[in-house]
């Protein structure tokens, strides 16, 4: 067997491209963030223009910082470190370039659609369906390029950073595809396949795990590679990193329901979300300590090296955020914090502190390695760190104080808990205005730091030669499977996998089966556990060998990681799909919208109302006192997408229907301050002049019917007649109240929708859902 020596030149061009894109898009995303923060203080900054209005720009901000800033930074870090860890060039230059330009095209598409109201109406999943498809294609390209590179690797062992990258790729693919399943009604609009509580669960299963597997696991992989490199010493404990990885992957995926505590989500799911969130404390803090202790003996570098500064602070913010997350997932804490700025503080502690600082540390470390020139100014990088840190502390401190203040005021009661102390929602908004202003200053400081980095980067690379790293590798010919790795049969037919599959099968029969099957499942589960333990005791070495070989086998490792994350999702989602059926709903059931109300609802989604107004009255006394009877699961069962919301910049709207006359809504939408003095809500005056598009309603109703909403088989003419009839009634009522508006304007449809909110029917015990025709 001959040994061949060859020189591998890494593809660092694509790393440089992603790195520059991250800096540029990061600046754009954060600039929009500062603007929308200022808009909450100064409503005039909405400029009475739809595409510059808060609710249109907020999705642009979140999508830009998640998918453009962190996405590009992640791709740069993954591609750079993977090539060096596996000692191989990226598998395909074409796929690398396709990935880069395709991803930038997606970002540009998002920037061209979100401000104009093209949205799916679900947080962090707003992009319309053609862009969703493009995202899936680009993710597949990324996955193929990555796994192909692993297949060509010259280093058999898989370092723990690679494990985190694998978990990221398979989990994000699963989450993104499932949560974006939808039926299109046009090229720019679709209805989610899921509705009501089902949609809420799937959305937050996605939303929470987007944080976990897009903003956390890839950055942890980056931490495990770049932090030891910057510190010049190996990770503090490799054993701890193994525990960190597996426990994080197994536990994270279950915690999504903590976004829906005290809502009408079934109690067992809320308990599950809370329990697993608390369990996350252990692996998260294990990872944080592992990162910080890697700097042991090298803390003196903190004084001089900006890279170490950013990494140390970034990992500390990771620890802080992952302490705060489980804390917020405790039901009683959540009752205070949910829907308030405390959540905004938590999110920004993670994104600005963990993601932003880890990105900055990585970028400063990479600049002198990707271009043959030292960093332009270390002093400027240090200044960036301090300006950014002060910015984060101002931002997060202000939002903590704001969230707790508003939470306490909204929940305050007197007269033995029977009367609200602050019945006017605006009292709580005005109390936090100075804190919201401090948030603007904090955000602006952080952005200023980012611009310092962009300037430093520009000066560093001006006139510099891009450099691609190289390595000499010694490959045996012919290239066989790496010694010790598992064959296809080997990773299926082995004791741990066989006993796990059998055990899960019996457990499913026990929990989901009928009477006999359930008993058989229970016996089988116990029998399987006993046999597995006996086998483990007798053949301990074969179990250990399998695990060791797994660590050098990319395919089985990926499959097992996928199974680990898919289990949590299935156990939560499958029962929810069953209970979501109208026939299984007890107590109250939603009345399907009329065609005009449906059109109004689409406007509500388009304008991003859900970003400031929830439609979920929690099972909490202050919520019920303020907004009315608590929301039932069946009351939103036909909502595609659900609009429960996650933040209350304004009051809940679940039972606003009939609370005010039509003319109140018209005046309020035209100029909120004419009705509510001191309101910070933008004007939505264009709704009074825009003509309602009813041409798409027949298709939309047909899709709603496909999704299970009990609409009758209306003809187009019947739909048009229904719309016309309801429009005229509302327009007449407005005229009688002194407001003159054409009946075919968008505001009329929106009023129809708002006035319907909170109406329901009592469930008939026999079960079947009545239709509008009934």
């Amino acid at each position, binding site marked *: 067997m001959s040994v061949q020596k060859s020189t591998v030149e890494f593809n660092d061009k694509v790393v440089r491209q992603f790195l520059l894109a991250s800096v540029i898009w990061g600046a754009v995303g954060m600039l929009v963030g500062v603007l929308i923060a200022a808009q909450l203080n100064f409503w005039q900054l909405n400029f009475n223009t739809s595409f510059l209005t808060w609710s249109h720009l907020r999705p642009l901000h979140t999508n830009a910082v998640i998918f453009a800033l962190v996405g590009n930074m992640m791709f740069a870090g993954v591609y750079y470190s993977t090539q060096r860890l596996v000692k191989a060039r990226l598998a395909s230059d074409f796929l690398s370039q396709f990935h880069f330009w395709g991803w930038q095209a997606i970002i540009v598409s998002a920037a061209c659609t979100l401000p104009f109201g093209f949205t799916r109406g679900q947080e962090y999943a707003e992009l319309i369906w053609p862009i969703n498809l493009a995202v899936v294609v680009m993710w597949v390209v990324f996955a193929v390029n990555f796994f192909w590179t692993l297949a060509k690797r010259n280093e058999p062992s898989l370092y723990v950073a690679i494990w985190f990258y694998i978990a990221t790729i398979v989990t994000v693919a699963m989450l993104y595809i499932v949560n974006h399943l939808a039926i299109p009604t046009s090229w720019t609009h679709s209805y989610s396949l899921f509705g009501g509580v089902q949609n809420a669960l799937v959305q937050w299963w996605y939303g929470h795990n987007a944080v976990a597997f897009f903003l956390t696991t890839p950055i942890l992989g980056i931490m495990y590679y770049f932090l030891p490199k910057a510190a010049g010493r190996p990770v503090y404990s490799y054993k701890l990193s193994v525990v960190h990885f597996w426990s994080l992957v197994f536990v994270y995926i279950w915690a999504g329901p903590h976004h829906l505590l005290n809502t009408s989500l079934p109690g067992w799911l809320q308990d599950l979300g809370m329990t697993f969130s608390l369990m996350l404390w252990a692996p998260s803090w294990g990872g944080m300590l592992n990162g910080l202790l890697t700097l042991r003996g090298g803390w003196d570098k903190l004084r001089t090296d900006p890279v170490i500064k950013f990494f140390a602070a970034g990992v500390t913010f990771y620890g802080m955020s992952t302490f705060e997350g489980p804390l917020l997932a405790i039901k009683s804490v959540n009752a205070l914090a949910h829907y308030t700025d405390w959540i905004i503080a938590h999110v920004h502690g993670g994104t600005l502190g963990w993601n932003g600082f880890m990105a900055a540390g990585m970028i400063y470390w990479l600049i002198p390695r990707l271009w*043959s020139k030292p960093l332009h100014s270390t002093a400027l990088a240090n200044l960036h760190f301090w300006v950014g840190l002060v910015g984060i502390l101002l931002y997060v401190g202000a939002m903590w104080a704001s969230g707790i203040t508003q939470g306490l005021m909204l929940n305050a009661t007197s007269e033995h808990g029977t009367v609200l102390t602050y019945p006017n929602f605006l009292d709580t908004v005005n109390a936090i205005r100075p804190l919201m202003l401090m948030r603007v200053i904090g955000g602006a400081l952080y952005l200023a730091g980012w611009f310092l980095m962009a300037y430093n980067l520009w000066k560093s690379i001006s006139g510099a*030669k891009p450099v691609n*790293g190289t390595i000499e590798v010694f490959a045996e010919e012919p290239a066989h499977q790496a010694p010790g790795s598992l064959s296809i049969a080997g990773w299926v037919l082995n004791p741990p996998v066989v006993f796990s599959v059998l055990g899960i099968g019996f457990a499913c029969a026990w929990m989901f089966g009928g009477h006999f099957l359930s008993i058989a499942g229970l016996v089988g589960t116990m029998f399987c556990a006993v046999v597995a333990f006996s086998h483990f005791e007798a053949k301990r070495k074969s179990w250990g060998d399998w695990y060791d070989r797994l660590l050098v086998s990319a395919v089985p490792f990926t499959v097992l990681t996928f199974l680990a994350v898919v289990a949590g999702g299935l*156990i939560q989602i499958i029962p929810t799909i069953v209970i979501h059926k109208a026939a299984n709903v007890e107590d109250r059931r939603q009345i399907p919208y009329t065609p005009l109300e449906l059109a109004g609802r689409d406007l509500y989604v388009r304008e991003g109302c859900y970003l400031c107004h929830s439609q979920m009255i929690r099972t909490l006394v202050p919520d019920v006192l303020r907004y009315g009877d608590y929301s039932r699961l069946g009351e939103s069962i036909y909502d595609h997408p659900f609009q429960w919301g996650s933040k209350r910049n304004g009051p809940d709207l679940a039972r606003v229907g009939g609370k005010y006359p039509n003319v109140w809504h018209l005046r309020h939408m035209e100029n909120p301050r004419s009705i509510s003095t001191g309101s910070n809500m933008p004007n939505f005056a264009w709704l009074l002049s825009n003509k309602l598009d009813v041409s798409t309603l027949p298709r939309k109703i047909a899709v709603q019917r496909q999704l299970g909403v009990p609409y009758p088989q209306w003809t187009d003419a019947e739909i048009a007649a229904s719309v016309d009839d309801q429009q005229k009634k509302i327009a007449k009522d407005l005229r009688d109240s002194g407001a003159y508006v054409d009946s075919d304007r968008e505001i009329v449809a929106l009023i129809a929708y708002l006035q319907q909110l909170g109406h329901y029917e009592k469930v008939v015990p026999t079960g079947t859902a009545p239709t509008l025709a009934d």
Partner: protein
Amino acid sequence: MFTRIIYGDSTAIFTVVAFGVAASIFITISWRALLMKRPQVERYENLPFLTATPTCAEAGQDGQAKCEATPQLRT
């Protein structure tokens, strides 16, 4: 079984079983990690250092930036 899943007490079993499964996995993995032998750990933890990542340092007193020479420069 699921038709009364909103109200039925039996559904608490999901939370208990899920906790048990996750806890057992956590213990198993921790045990496996603890059993890793020192040479194996050293091999893994040094993987980031097997490939050199040469850098350019800031200019010293002589005013010249110092770049390590290993990589081939490509424009």
